[in-house]
């Protein structure tokens, strides 16, 4: 077939999709391709910084009793190295890669929320910068990447080091959640016609799973950081055992995030491998279903492993054995993937290009890391080597072998789609062997040093205990490895002087290779029509299919040209459903991120007025962002009629389908938050002999019960509206939502009054801390539901534009759904706070 496919030579269309021009245009750029590239560059920069920190650590450890640096500096480097690699490098760079490539791989044009893409980037950048600004003051975080309390609590870390970590992390993690949110919706709702769920490129299945995990896992660590920051700033007692708090609570919450985090990194890397192997073996994967099964099941199972990081904290044997069992079982799906890869390679004839070399390096190194992982999953073994260098060796095998190698493979493979250039093969081979050999020389001896009893996180060790040689070798290996990275950078820079390559230099099968190298910003003017898993291998042509689809795709290529149009396809059938407007460039994403960064940064220095100012900036930015004034007006009645006959709706605003997905995911996040708070409550209650404490008296029972009655009746009234259609029942809809809002409002007042009767505060004891937090969350959910209802009321009242009724409809549905979720939270919290103490 002739490539590139689907590019345009229509001036209007090209102009529409060009990035904004002007000296400050990059500040307001949106769209996936410029932002995706920034993610990659920034992520790689953090990788280099984290790597340099590692080299300094290795220099310090090269010989016994070395005094190149102070213990304090070592702690800071170690903590920042781990945190940088895990929070600022791997996850963002993988999300960035997906942000950049997902649209063209899916055969569509962009991600659903261009401005949100930009915001995610700025939030990530500012979060990272916030963390790193601590170095300027010489107070970098020093509590390790998992920041255990009580070490990081107010008592033992009185300085501001940990505040930088906690608050910077909040911003960076929020960015991760947002990117994940977008990628999920893109993969589910925005695909080329014909690309059913069973034909999605494996990398995007992996991103779908990883992103769903991020949504849940990142929330728990955000909440844990919130507790710790509250303990440090407001004197709450979540982690103070003397006041009924628990230090293990941190470990539970952290690892409930931390273990899935490992797979959040590994699954996309495995996805990259599954993309590359078929290309260089000229052979489809022997089982696509098995690979997807492995991705999904690993993703789910990874939520049942967290306590294997806590075997040495003391837990009932039976509990330990649950986690032990799962730690071993989780190897089954990974093994399954391995067999699929091996079988595919077996059947094909391997073409030894650099990406494939890195894939092989991955298979060897990750195998070792995986096996030592299973060893550590066996509790008695872990008791021996916990917190020794054996663990350091293990997780670097997993992270470098399992993630960095595939990532570099991916860079070599996709560079033509990123910069348009192929990277050199000769330097590529140097690159690979230096990294492969260097890596093993650096990290294999650490297993042995660990067996010899070298603890992790020490800045030095004494002479004559048999550790010197291992460490010297490790340091040597680390520098060989670093040379390999240097070669990568040189190879990259050298490649930039090459001319652009063909659209499909590797003879690959997935859709991103159908566009030019690099792809145009819109990826496809004419969307490809997909008929299988390996379209470029299986199809002679991408614009042939059933008549109707061909017609739809052609129509879409002719209109709209003057505004950026995204396309929604049906989750199951892969048919075109909606054409909608993608928001244009804006300064607001960066302004919003700046506001939040100011707000969080000011908190570090207890400057609460500045913090409030930051929030105000953020709020204003948000409102301006949402201002719908710039929506496109161009229309073409005949074409819209035609779309309508196909069953495709045209929206000059956001897509209703996407709005539904967004609400669904947001509510998922809200329920995760609720779950985490409730877990905290009950976990603390089992750890205290008397719960609630004697001194804690609940007041305002009557008001609280009344409040529940009011919200329940509000819900009944809202639920009733399900029976009214927009056309006939508009006034009824308005009436019901108005009455329900009043009821909810009164409920809020009553509940606040009930809470004002309490005999304790959030600093009294851990019970008080979680009590007030739950109360705050309850009110927050109420406010959210009220805001949603107000928007619905507003639109029902004022928006009678026939073209926008679907949108009004979605607003109403979403208001209804958020009311359900709000009520679920209210009742759960009422049960927990008021009733549960009497049941136990």
């Amino acid at each position, binding site marked *: 077939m002739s490539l590139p496919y689907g590019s345009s030579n229509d001036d209007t269309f090209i102009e529409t999709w060009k990035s904004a021009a002007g000296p400050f245009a990059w500040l307001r750029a949106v769209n996936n391709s410029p932002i995706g590239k920034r993610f990659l560059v920034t992520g790689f920069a953090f990788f280099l910084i984290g790597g340099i920190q590692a080299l300094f650590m290795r220099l310090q450890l090269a010989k016994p009793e070395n005094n190149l640096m102070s213990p304090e500096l070592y702690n800071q480097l170690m903590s920042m190295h781990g945190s940088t690699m895990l929070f600022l490098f791997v996850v963002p760079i993988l999300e960035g890669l997906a942000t950049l490539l997902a649209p063209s791989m899916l055969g569509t044009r962009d991600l659903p929320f261009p401005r949100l893409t930009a915001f995610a980037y700025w939030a990530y950048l500012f979060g990272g910068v916030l963390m790193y600004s601590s170095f300027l003051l010489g107070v970098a975080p020093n509590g390790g990447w998992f920041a255990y309390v009580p070490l990081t609590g107010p008592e033992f870390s009185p300085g501001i080091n940990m505040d930088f970590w906690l608050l910077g992390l909040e911003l960076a993690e929020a960015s991760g959640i947002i990117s994940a949110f977008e990628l999920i919706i893109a993969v589910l709702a925005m695909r080329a016609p014909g690309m059913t769920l069973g034909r999605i490129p494996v990398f995007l299945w992996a991103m779908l799973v990883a992103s769903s995990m991020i949504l849940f896992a990142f929330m728990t660590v955000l909440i844990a950081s919130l507790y710790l920051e509250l303990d440090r700033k407001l004197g709450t007692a979540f982690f103070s055992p003397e006041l009924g708090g628990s230090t293990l609570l941190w470990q539970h919450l952290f690892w409930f995030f931390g273990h899935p985090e490992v797979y959040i990194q590994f699954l996309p890397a495995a996805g990259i491998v599954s993309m590359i192997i078929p290309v260089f073996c000229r052979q489809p994967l022997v089982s696509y279903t*098995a690979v997807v099964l492995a991705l999904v099941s690993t993703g789910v199972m990874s939520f049942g492993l967290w306590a294997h990081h806590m075997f040495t904290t003391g837990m009932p044997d039976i*509990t330990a054995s649950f986690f032990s069992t799962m730690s071993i079982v989780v190897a089954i799906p990974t093994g399954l993937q391995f067999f699929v890869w091996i079988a595919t390679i077996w059947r094909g004839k391997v073409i030894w290009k650099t990406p494939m070399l890195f894939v092989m390096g991955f298979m060897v190194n990750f195998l070792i890391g995986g096996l030592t992982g299973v060893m550590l999953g066996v509790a008695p073994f872990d008791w021996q080597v916990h917190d020794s260098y054996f663990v350091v060796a293990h997780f670097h095998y997993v992270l470098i072998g399992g993630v960095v190698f595939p990532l570099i493979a991916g860079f070599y493979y996709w560079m033509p789609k990123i910069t348009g250039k192929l990277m050199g093969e000769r330097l590529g081979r140097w690159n690979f062997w230096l990294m492969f050999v260097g890596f093993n020389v650096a990290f294999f001896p650490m297993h042995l040093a660990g067996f010899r009893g070298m603890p992790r996180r020490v800045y030095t060790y004494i002479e004559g205990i048999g550790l010197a040689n291992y460490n010297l070798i490790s340091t040597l290996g680390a520098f060989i490895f670093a040379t390999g990275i240097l070669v990568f950078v040189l190879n990259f820079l050298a490649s930039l002087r090459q001319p652009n390559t063909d659209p499909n230099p590797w003879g690959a099968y997935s859709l991103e290779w159908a566009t030019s190298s690099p792809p145009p910003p819109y990826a496809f003017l004419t969307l490809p029509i997909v008929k299988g898993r390996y379209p470029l291998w299986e199809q002679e042509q991408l614009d042939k299919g059933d008549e109707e689809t061909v017609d739809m795709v052609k129509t879409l290529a002719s209109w709209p040209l003057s505004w950026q149009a995204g396309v929604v396809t049906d989750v199951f059938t892969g048919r075109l459903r909606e054409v909608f407007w993608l928001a244009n460039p804006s300064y607001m994403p960066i302004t919003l991120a700046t506001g939040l960064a100011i707000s969080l940064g000011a908190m570090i220095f207890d400057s609460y007025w500045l913090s409030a100012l930051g929030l105000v900036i953020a709020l204003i930015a948000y409102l301006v962002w949402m201002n719908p004034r710039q929506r496109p007006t161009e229309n073409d009645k005949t074409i819209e009629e035609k779309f309508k006959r196909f069953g495709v709706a045209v929206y000059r605003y956001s897509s209703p389908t996407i709005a539904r997905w967004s609400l669904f995911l947001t509510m998922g996040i809200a329920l995760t938050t609720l779950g985490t708070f409730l877990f905290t409550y009950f976990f603390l209650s089992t750890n205290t002999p008397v719960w609630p404490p004697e001194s804690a008296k609940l007041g305002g029972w009557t008001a609280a019960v009344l409040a529940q009655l009011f919200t329940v009746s509000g819900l009944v009234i809202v639920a009733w509206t399900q029976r009214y259609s927009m056309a006939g029942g508009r006034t009824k809809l308005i009436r019901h939502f108005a009455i329900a809002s009043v009821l909810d409002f009164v409920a809020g007042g009553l509940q606040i009054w009930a809470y004002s009767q309490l005999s304790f505060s959030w600093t009294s004891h851990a019970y008080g801390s979680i009590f007030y937090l739950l109360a705050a969350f309850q009110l927050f959910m109420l406010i959210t539901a009220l805001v949603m209802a107000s928007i619905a009321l507003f639109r029902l009242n004022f928006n009678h534009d026939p073209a926008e009724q679907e949108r009004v409809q979605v607003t109403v549905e979403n208001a209804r759904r958020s009311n359900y979720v709000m009520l679920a939270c209210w009742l759960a919290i009422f049960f927990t706070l008021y009733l549960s103490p009497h049941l136990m």
Partner: protein
Amino acid sequence: MTVVPARTLLWISFISTPLLWLLHFLLAYLITEGSCSAAGENTGIFGASSLTLLYLLTFVFVLASVFFTFLAFRTSKQAQKTAPSYDDFLPKLGFTCGLLFSFVVLLEFIPLAILGAC
């Protein structure tokens, strides 16, 4: 127009068994956490011994998983009739997930049977 399986059914056939496993795991964990002290005494929960509860729980969850696995199987057969326009991938995936996760729920039960509740 061919009859297609309801969309919710497709989703359910896919996610039910993984969710069941997760729920089983969390419940089993909470029960032991709530009723076993680190010293190994069993204080029970809601009057029942935690072992009885766990037996019961596992039994119910295995049954439910098998049921949903079967459901996924049926849905995938049903969806196959309308393929390729209507994708049977999700229920097929759900069926394999069902087999795996039903097995895993059982597997987790082994330590219980050997070690007892606490």
